[in-house]
C-alpha cells in the first residue's frame, strides 16, 4: 500500500504539530516516520504517513486544520529500511559563513561514494556550522578523502574534521 509524504511549513507558533497530527489521526493515518524542527523561525514537518487515504483527501483535511501553513501531500512508494552501505563517519565543518560550503563539501563526499544519512547546518553570527553523518563504502580510501576535504575546506577558508562515528551497541 502506498504511503504519503506530507510536508508542512510555515511561521512557527504553538499547536502546529497537534493540529496536523490530529487531522491525520482523524483519517486513520499512522505516522511511520517524521522529522519536525524549527528552521529560522519557520516550523518544518516532514512526515511519512500510512493508511490515511489518498493524497487529495489528506491535503483537503489538513488545509483547514492549519490554514496559515504550506501543506503538500504526495504518494510515495513504500521503502524498506535502507541497508548500510559502509561504515558511519561524522564530518564537522565550521568557519566564516559564505555561499557554497554545503555543496562543495557534499560533492567531495559524493565523489567518494559517501551516502549522507543526516545533516545539520547552523548559523550564528559569522559562524557557520555543518555536521554530516555519512556512510563511507568499504572501498573508500578514508585518508585520501580526509585530504580532499582538507583541501576543499582550505579553499573555502573553513575547518573540516572527519572521524569515525562511534556506534556503541549495548
Amino acid at each position, binding site marked *: 500500500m502506498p504511503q504519503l509524504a506530507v510536508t508542512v511549513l510555515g511561521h512557527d507558533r504553538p499547536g502546529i504539530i497537534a493540529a496536523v497530527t490530529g487531522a491525520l489521526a482523524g483519517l486513520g493515518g499512522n505516522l511511520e516516520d517524521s522529522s519536525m524542527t524549527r528552521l529560522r523561525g519557520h516550523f518544518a514537518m516532514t512526515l511519512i504517513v500510512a493508511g490515511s487515504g489518498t493524497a487529495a483527501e489528506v491535503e483537503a483535511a489538513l488545509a483547514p486544520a492549519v490554514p496559515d501553513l504550506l501543506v503538500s501531500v504526495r504518494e510515495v512508494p513504500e521503502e524498506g529500511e535502507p541497508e548500510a552501505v559502509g561504515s558511519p563517519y*561524522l564530518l*564537522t565543518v*565550521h*568557519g*566564516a559563513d559564505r555561499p557554497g560550503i554545503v555543496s562543495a563539501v557534499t560533492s567531495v563526499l559524493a565523489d567518494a561514494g559517501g551516502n549522507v544519512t*543526516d*545533516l*545539520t547546518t*547552523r548559523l*550564528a*553570527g*559569522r*559562524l*557557520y*556550522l555543518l*555536521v*554530516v*553523518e555519512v556512510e563511507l563504502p568499504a572501498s573508500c580510501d578514508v585518508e585520501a578523502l580526509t585530504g580532499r576535504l582538507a583541501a576543499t575546506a582550505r579553499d573555502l577558508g*573553513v*575547518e573540516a*574534521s572527519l*572521524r569515525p*562515528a*562511534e556506534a556503541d551497541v549495548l
Partner: protein
Amino acid sequence: MTGPLLAVDLPAGRVLPVVAAPDPVLSTPCVDVDPRDPSVAQLAADLLATQRVSPGCVGLAANQVGVGWRMFSVDVSAHPKARTHHGAYVLVNPQVQEASRNERGREGCMSVPDFTGDVKRATRLVVRGLEPVTGRELIVATDAFEARCLQHELDHLSGLLFLDRVAGAHAIYPRQTYQEGGPGSVG
C-alpha cells in the same frame, strides 16, 4: 587528590577580551613555550583573571585570548559537576598521559557562545604539564568534569573546538546567552 595545585605567586592578572570562532587563531595549533619566561607568567595570570570574571567559565586556553601558546587555565572547583578538582591553576605545554572510560556530556565554550554540544570524553585522565614561573612538572590525575575540562582545553591548543568532536548531526544545541552555570559550560 583534591585541592590547590598551583604553588607560585603570579603577577597581577589583566582581563583580556575572549575571541570567538571563526577567528583563525582558534583553528591554529599552538606552540610550546618556556614556562620560566616572564611573559608566560603574565599570560597565566591574565588567563586566570579573565576566567574568573567570565560567568560559567571553568577553563581558558591561551588562543582563546588570541595568543598561540600551549597553556591554559582551569578552575572547576565551584562547578556542581566536578568531583575531583585541583583549584585554580595553569598548565604550560600540557600532554595527556592516560585517558580512559569515555562518557558523553554536554559542553559549551566562551569562543562558541551560541551553541552547546554533546561530546564523548575520557572520565579518568592523567595530564602532565609545567608550572608557570618554576617550570616544575605538575601531574594532574583527575576525573569527571575536571577531566572533561582539561580535554576541552587541550583540544583548543591543538586548534580544535568541541564542534570538531560532537557526537552526531543532532548533538548540537542552540544557546541564546552564555548562562552562569549553564549546561556543562567549559571554556
